[in-house]
């Protein structure tokens, strides 16, 4: 038990140092713009299908599950605003981040771990390239930029799914549905949601890169590394979400 606690603190310290190195190196040249663009495309393109379909289903399910209760209290007109706020504030960012932790995080950590095991990272260094800049900074920056984009997309698709249910079950037009959604949504809902998405993206990518970059124990370690990266980054998403809600409450009086 003591050993586990010690390991937890050591890993936390190392991830903090790894993050500090990111901030130290991200501002100074050489800048790997081409690799950053490639990684941004890969992260966005790889996840957009999964994020879109999951968001769509979440919108439908949430509306179908809450509708009977609201109908019972005669409050079905509150449905668009309630679903809108729930999706934009919480469901959209958290579900998207968890999907990215599973898909993007595991991909990054497994790729870097296998590069480490097969000496590709050393080969890169011998070729006059700083592997931290080329592999870590590009991936972390790309994930930090792309996650909010994916969250906005997931929110939109989720609301479309919800609007479809409302149209089919209650005859609410798309125009009326969205006008109700935006009537009750304000900056206090949108800004914290977008801001925390940046942090989710950063946390997922930095943990995954740290795990991949420090992988050992040969090919056996590659699978374990990917697994650990997903578990830690998923946990971090919830911790960051908790902190974000506390801070939002101070600024926006939720």
């Amino acid at each position: 038990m003591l050993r586990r606690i010690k390991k937890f603190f050591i890993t936390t310290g190392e991830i903090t140092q790894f993050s500090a190195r990111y901030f130290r190196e991200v501002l100074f040249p050489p800048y790997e713009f081409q690799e950053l663009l490639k990684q941004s495309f890969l992260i966005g393109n790889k996840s957009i299908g999964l994020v879109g379909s999951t968001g769509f289903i979440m919108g439908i399910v949430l509306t179908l599950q809450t509708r009977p209760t609201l109908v019972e209290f005669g409050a079905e007109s509150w449905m668009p605003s309630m679903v809108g706020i729930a999706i934009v504030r919480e469901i959209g960012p958290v579900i998207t981040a968890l999907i990215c932790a599973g898909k993007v995080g595991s991909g990054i950590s497994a790729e870097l771990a296998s590069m480490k095991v097969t000496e590709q990272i050393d080969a890169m260094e011998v070729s006059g390239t700083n592997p931290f800049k080329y592999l870590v900074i590009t991936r972390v920056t790309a994930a930090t930029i792309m996650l909010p984009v994916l969250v906005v997309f997931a929110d939109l698709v989720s609301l479309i799914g919800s609007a479809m249910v409302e149209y089919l079950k209650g005859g609410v037009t798309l125009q009326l549905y969205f006008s109700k959604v935006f009537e009750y949504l304000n900056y206090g809902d949108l800004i914290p949601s977008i801001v925390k998405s940046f942090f989710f993206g950063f946390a997922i990518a930095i943990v995954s890169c740290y795990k991949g970059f420090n992988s050992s124990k040969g090919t056996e370690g590659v699978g374990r590394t990917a697994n650990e990266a997903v578990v830690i980054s998923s946990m971090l998403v919830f911790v960051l979400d908790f902190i974000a809600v506390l801070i939002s409450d101070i600024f926006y009086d939720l």
Partner: protein
Amino acid sequence: MMIQENNFKKPVIEIKDLHKSFGNNHVLRGFDFTLMDGENVALLGKSGSGKSVLIKCIIGLIKIDSGQMRVLGQSMSDMTQKKLNSIRRDVGFLFQGSALYDSMSVRENLEFPMRRHHEKNDDSKTLLVRVEEALDSVGLLHTLDLMPAELSGGMKKRVAIARTLILRPKIILYDEPTGGLDPITGREISHLINKVQEQYKTSALIITHDLACAKITTNRIVILSEGKNYIEGSYGVLEQSSDPVVQEFFKK
């Protein structure tokens, strides 16, 4: 202990009293070595004796604890990253497992070191000519657009050799060039090492367990034992040695 003098004049790698430890594991304990210009030297040693650590120290992937190391006349201690990169331009490194980038095609693998070593001004046509020339010299021109996963172990080694040649290095460090290959392919790689030396006038330090490779490729063999240069000499001389440590390597 030196058994045979050689005829080479200018040293390209000079190592004196090199020490390197990992915790309590003292891998190199006062290693001395000189590689002369145009010479091919094989480094023999048991697994875990520090052979790979030594060549990673030479290329600056691992920092030494103490001792002196000069590569192409430049001291490797307290070297700036920029200077280290300029040394790395002149020192090719063949990794044990080839270390080709899985996500890049053969062509991109070969272009990568050129682009990184600030040959960015070269247009893609010039880069392609250099890539084709390097691939041609290892007999694999037809693999230009293949991915590493589509190549056999021997082909990967050849492509990796082509990648080390692309910057026309003065020294090539080979880490187990025939490791994991069948004897026939291993022999082909050994002859390729000789061909490369003749064509590009390189010097080479070859880490190997394969005596056939050492016999074909080298002018001199160094045996690393207990972190030190135990003995060195030509293949023929060492083969006749009655020293028990030497005999461990040469007994059939």
